[in-house]
């Protein structure tokens, strides 16, 4: 049972990380390599807020706002000018990630920081005690992804999102402010990255390169998702499970490499990833 829970945790935390990336990639066709930097912004903001005595969960919200604000600036200064140049966007967001990481190093120093868990209790799940916080993270990841799906499918905002995603020019001619839509999407995606950073902070080592190692896996998961939400869930399950199992039974370091290799091969033979569209 504890293995199952570990696997579920791997999947859930990956979903948390990937949510913002997926939103930005699916909506804007932008591979946002600044995601790692934004996660770092989130976690360091959390460190600061907690250092000022703000309770954990409100601090997470504030950290999300900080990350969202950073996203707004990035979108305005950089992303907006690069919509016609997708490959340059990859480079520019990569550069932005570096900039963010260096800024954080300047402000906070390169050493490790620590965040306390908001709760150290454990809950019994089907007879096995498991850390409450880890369960909360799983819940958060699943909830955010589910919320994304529900919003996109069932609300008018979601309709706008889908319209802009499928045919921007046409959406614009229907009176949808596509510039605003893109801006909001990027900000929300950035905020989600901040949330992921802030929530994962207590569990992972916090240094300026926080999130950099998860980036490659996260991106492959997004590419594998084929821009559909079920595809995203599937790829997170695949990656999370493979990584956790490999780490447990073989070698934690190789686990990351194996997952990447798996994704690369799948994408080669199925460029649309794990998207199964109704034929």
């Amino acid at each position: 049972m504890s293995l199952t829970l570990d696997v579920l945790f791997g999947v859930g935390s990956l979903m948390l990380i990937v949510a913002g990336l997926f939103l930005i990639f699916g909506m804007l066709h932008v591979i946002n390599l600044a995601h790692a930097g934004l996660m770092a912004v989130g976690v360091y903001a959390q460190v600061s807020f907690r250092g000022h005595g703000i309770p954990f969960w409100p601090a997470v919200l504030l950290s999300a706002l900080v990350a969202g604000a950073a996203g707004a600036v990035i979108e305005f200064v950089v992303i907006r000018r690069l919509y016609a140049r997708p490959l340059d966007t990859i480079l520019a967001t990569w550069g932005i990630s570096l900039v963010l990481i260096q800024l954080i190093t300047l402000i906070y120093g390169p050493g490790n920081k620590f965040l306390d868990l908001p709760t150290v209790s454990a809950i019994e799940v089907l007879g096995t005690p498991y850390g409450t916080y880890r369960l909360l993270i799983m819940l958060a990841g699943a909830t955010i992804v589910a919320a994304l799906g529900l919003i996109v499918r069932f609300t008018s905002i979601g309709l706008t999102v889908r319209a802009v995603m499928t045919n921007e020019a046409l959406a614009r001619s229907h009176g949808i402010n596509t510039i605003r839509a893109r801006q909001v999407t990027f900000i929300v995606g950035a905020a989600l990255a901040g949330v992921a950073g802030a929530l994962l902070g207590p569990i992972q080592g916090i240094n300026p390169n926080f999130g950099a190692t998860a980036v490659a896996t996260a991106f492959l998961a997004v590419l594998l998702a084929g821009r559909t939400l079920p595809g995203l869930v599937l790829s997170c399950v695949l990656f999370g499970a493979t990584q956790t199992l490999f780490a447990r039974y073989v070698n934690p370091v190789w686990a990351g490499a194996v997952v990447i290799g798996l994704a690369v091969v799948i994408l080669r033979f199925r460029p649309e990833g794990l998207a199964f569209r109704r034929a």
Partner: protein
Amino acid sequence: MLVALVLLAVAPLFLGTYYLGLLTISLVYGVLAVSLDLVWGYTGIPDLGHALWFGIGALSVAMATTKLDSFGIVLTTYPGLGRHLAGLVIGVLVAGAIAAVVGILSFSQREADPFYIAIVTLALTVVAGTIYGQLPQYTGGDNGIFGIAYHGLTNVQWYYVSAAVLVVVAAGALVLVRSDFGLVMRSIRDNERRVRFFGVNVELMKLIVFVGGAMIAAGAGGMFAMIEGFVSSQLFDFLFSTQILIWVAVGGRATVLGPILGAVGLSFVTAELSSSSPTQWALFLGLLFVAVVVFIPDGVLPPIVRLFRRVFHQHGAQGGRQLVDVQRSAPELRPAGEPVATVSDVEFGYGSLRVLRGVDFEILAGELLCIVGPNGAGKSTLLNVLTNGKVPMRGRIDYHLQHDRLAQSGASIHRIARSGVARKFQIPHLFDTLTVAETILVASMRGALPSVWRRTRDVQVGRSVHEIVDATALAGRENDLPPHLAHGLKQGLELAAALSMRPEILLLDEPTAGLTANERHVIGEVFRRLLDAGVTIVLIEHDLDFVARVADRVIVLHGGKVVESGTPAEVAASPVVREAYVGTAVT
């Protein structure tokens, strides 16, 4: 450039040992930057993990010249030149092999995501960095391997070796990018999809360039190991990969010299500043990178060169090209009426939408066949299926060309194009940095492997191409770029390019769209002459007067099926056709 060479030659006289060493390594970085420029700047392959190849080259030298215990501590060193050179060569070959695997995996034809290679190379470099620490018995682990320098040369001698290697590599790169091969590289970068229809095997070309770039980078890595004497995971990781990207982006993509300046200049400054304020410098570099990518995507060098030219009243455009006549014997004409292509019961669609629902017809040699029909009938889809080799859901298409018999199903776009099926697109899809003559040259090569050193100045094309060029007022503008051409001229270029492929079947999608009445008349005449020369023409058209004038045969597509076929007169009189155009339900 001469000035630079002179400076290079005399530098040791002015620089102390420290700076000379710095410059020597910077020159090695210059070689590395050139290799990335060829791969990314000229061919458009975003290799985000270029440091990987460099690291492989360095590691290979280290492994060949040392013996490590299981913890990565150096037990013995073998300092001989033979060992070093063997390591270098092996490193180059291994890098090439791995790059070949990555390339084959990444450059596939169907719906290839341009992001894919970027993410794969990024992932590889991330993975390499982590794996490095896990195999200390080969790599020295987290500390790396030290003491592998080759001491048989003095500092000054190493400097001259580096400089010489850089000059040779740069000269070779300049020859390559100016040659016909370089032209095809650029055409792939500018419009990969379109150039396939000229017969270019994009996958193969990309593979060649990618592997070549990796091998040059590995050579630079080997040299680095021999000069600096160490290798560590830092040489593999994504931070170093980013630095190389910054050198190329800031120096100037696709200039060869720009990246060299970027590499030498920036690494020099980095060495100075990284000891005093590494974080601020890294921050500045990151900001510079973002700024260059967003605001000056061409890099720093091209604007400087333009300024230079203006100041010294030099005008570029060296290496202009022109179109000349080719002396070719008249091709044997096929007996008219033989089918050159057969479409049998083809069904095709996208997802759940069936567009073609059982199309049957033949294309006969030497005829001008027009496909007409109301919008949504499937005309463009039919043309697409004829040229892109996508497997239909049912039925088949077969080509019976003079020198080739092939089934369409599963054939690659460039294979179909090479065998003699040329296509002119409705909306001109051209190449931003290729002149008129260069576009026609690439098309006329029809996918043959281009020379890596020769630069064709006289583009040999047949009479029909000259006629189109004259008729559409392209004459005299052979060295202009597409952004400077009006729409009609772009259409003319599209047609000329398609014709320069010497096709057996020419497929045109609404060729008269946007043309004046006079231009339509001229096009009609050109088509007649093409028919006389043995080309079979298939048109999609809406201008029914034009169709009546030029067509030998007309087929009418409606609701994904051929509802009528015959001469223009027969079709015009057919009640079925009238119903289709006026509008009745699809049965």
